[in-house]
C-alpha cells in the first residue's frame, strides 16, 4: 500500500478498523493525523445530516398500518367467502355481499379495538417522554437512550482523540474509556448541550452522557434508575453530571468509577 491508496481508503471509510490500514498508519504520525482529521470530518457530516425527526412519527406509522391492515383484512375475508357463497347458492347477488361485509365488520371490531388501545398506549408513552421539564433525571436519561436506540448498534471505532476534540468544546478531557467508542454526538439535554457517547463493554454497549451541570438538566430524582431493559447511575459533579446507562445486570459501579476517574476539566 502507498500513501495515495491509504488516503483513498481512509476517505472512503474513515472508521475502518482494517488491520492493514491500522498498521500502515502506525508507521507515520502524519497518517494517524489524517485518520483523525477524516474521522472528525465524518462527525461533522453526521451532525449536519442529523435532521430532526418529526415528533410522533413511529406512532403515525403504526396507526396508518393498523388502518390499512383493517381495510385489507375486510377485503380478504370477503374474497375468501366468495367461493363458498357460489357453491351454496346460484349466482351470488350483490346484495348478499353487502350483508356479508357488514357482518364481517362486526367481527373485525375486536382487533380494531386492540389496535386502538395499543395506539393509545404508544401515544401515552410518546407524550410522556416529550414533557421534558419536570420528570425525573433517570427517566430523562432512559428516554434519550430509547430515542437514539440505534446508537447501540454501531460498531465502527471512534478514536479517543476524536472524542476529546468534541469534549474540549465543553471544557473537558477524557484520559481513557473502558471500551471502544462507537457513537459520539452532541445532544440537547433540556436545553443544555452535552456529550452522548456509547462504548463497547464486556456487558454490551453502554451509554454515557456528560452534561454540564449549569442548567441542572439532571437535577431532580434518584441517582439510580432502571426499567425492564436498562439500568443507570447518575454521578452529579461540580462541573458536570455523568450518566451511565447499561443493560440490566451489568456491574455499573465498576464502570462508573472508571469513567468518572478518567474525566478531567480544563479550567
Amino acid at each position, binding site marked *: 500500500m502507498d500513501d495515495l491508496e491509504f488516503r483513498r481508503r481512509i476517505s*472512503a471509510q474513515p472508521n475502518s478498523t482494517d488491520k492493514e490500514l491500522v498498521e500502515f498508519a502506525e508507521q507515520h504520525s502524519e497518517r494517524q493525523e489524517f485518520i483523525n482529521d477524516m474521522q472528525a470530518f465524518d462527525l461533522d457530516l453526521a451532525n449536519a*445530516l442529523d435532521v*430532526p425527526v418529526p415528533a410522533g412519527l413511529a406512532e*403515525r406509522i403504526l396507526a*396508518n*398500518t393498523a388502518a390499512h*391492515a383493517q381495510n385489507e383484512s375486510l377485503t380478504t375475508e370477503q374474497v375468501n367467502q366468495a367461493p363458498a357463497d357460489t357453491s351454496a347458492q346460484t349466482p351470488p347477488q350483490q346484495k348478499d355481499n353487502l350483508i356479508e361485509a357488514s357482518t364481517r365488520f362486526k367481527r373485525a371490531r375486536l382487533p380494531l379495538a386492540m389496535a386502538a388501545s395499543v395506539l393509545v398506549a404508544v401515544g401515552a408513552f410518546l407524550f410522556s417522554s416529550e414533557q421534558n421539564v419536570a420528570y425525573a433525571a433517570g427517566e430523562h436519561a432512559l428516554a434519550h437512550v430509547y430515542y437514539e*436506540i*440505534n446508537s447501540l448498534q454501531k460498531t465502527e471505532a471512534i478514536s479517543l482523540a476524536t472524542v476529546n476534540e468534541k469534549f474540549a468544546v465543553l471544557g473537558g478531557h477524557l484520559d481513557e474509556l473502558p471500551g471502544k467508542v462507537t457513537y459520539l454526538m452532541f445532544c440537547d439535554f433540556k436545553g443544555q448541550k452535552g456529550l452522548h457517547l456509547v462504548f463497547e463493554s464486556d456487558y454490551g454497549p453502554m451509554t454515557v452522557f456528560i452534561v454540564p451541570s449549569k442548567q441542572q438538566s439532571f437535577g431532580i430524582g434518584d441517582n439510580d434508575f432502571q426499567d425492564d431493559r436498562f439500568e443507570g447511575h447518575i454521578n452529579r459533579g461540580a462541573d458536570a453530571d455523568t450518566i451511565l446507562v447499561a443493560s440490566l445486570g451489568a456491574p455499573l459501579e465498576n464502570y462508573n468509577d472508571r469513567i468518572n476517574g478518567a474525566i478531567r476539566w480544563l479550567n
Partner: protein
Amino acid sequence: MLGNENSKSQVLVDMAEKKTRYEKLVHIYHSELYRFAYWLCRDPNIAEDLVQETFLRAWRSLDSLLDQKAAKPWLLTILRRENARRFERKQFDYSDVENDTLVDEKSVTLDDEMEQTVIQRQIAKLPDEYREPLLLQVVMGCSGEEIAEILDLNKNTVMTRLYRARNQLKEALSRDDEQLKGASN
C-alpha cells in the same frame, strides 16, 4: 369444526407475532429511514410520506423478510423503489436547501449551526451517485457490502464513490472557507 377453531387461533398467534416483529422494525428504523428519505427528497412532508409508504409495504410483505438482520437493506430497497416511483408519477419541484428551514434542535451554538448549514448545502449539491452511498454510510451506518447490495454496484465502485464524495465535499468546504475569509478582509 374443532380443527377450524384451532387453525383460527393459530392465525391469531401468527398475527400477534407479525405485529410484534413489525412494531420492533418501526421503532428501530423509522428515525434513520426518515433522515435518509429527507436527504433524498429534501422535503419533510415527502420524506414522511416515503417512510409511511415504505413501512406499509414492509407490513404487507413482512413474511418475505426471513432474516431479521437483513431488515435494514430490505427497508432501504423498498424506500428507494418508492422514491423512484415518485418520479414516475410526477416530477416534483426541488426546493433549494438554502431556502429550507432546517432547524436542528440539537445544535445550540451559532457557530455550530452555521457550520452545519454550510455542510448541508454542500451535501445537497453533491451528484446523486456520490450522495447516496455517503448517506447510506453516514446516516444508515451501512457497510460497504450493504451499500453495494442496495445500490446494485460492486464494492470497488462504492468505495471509489465514497472517496470522491468526501473529497468533493472537503474541497467545496475549503473553497467556502476561503470565500468567507476573503469577504471578511
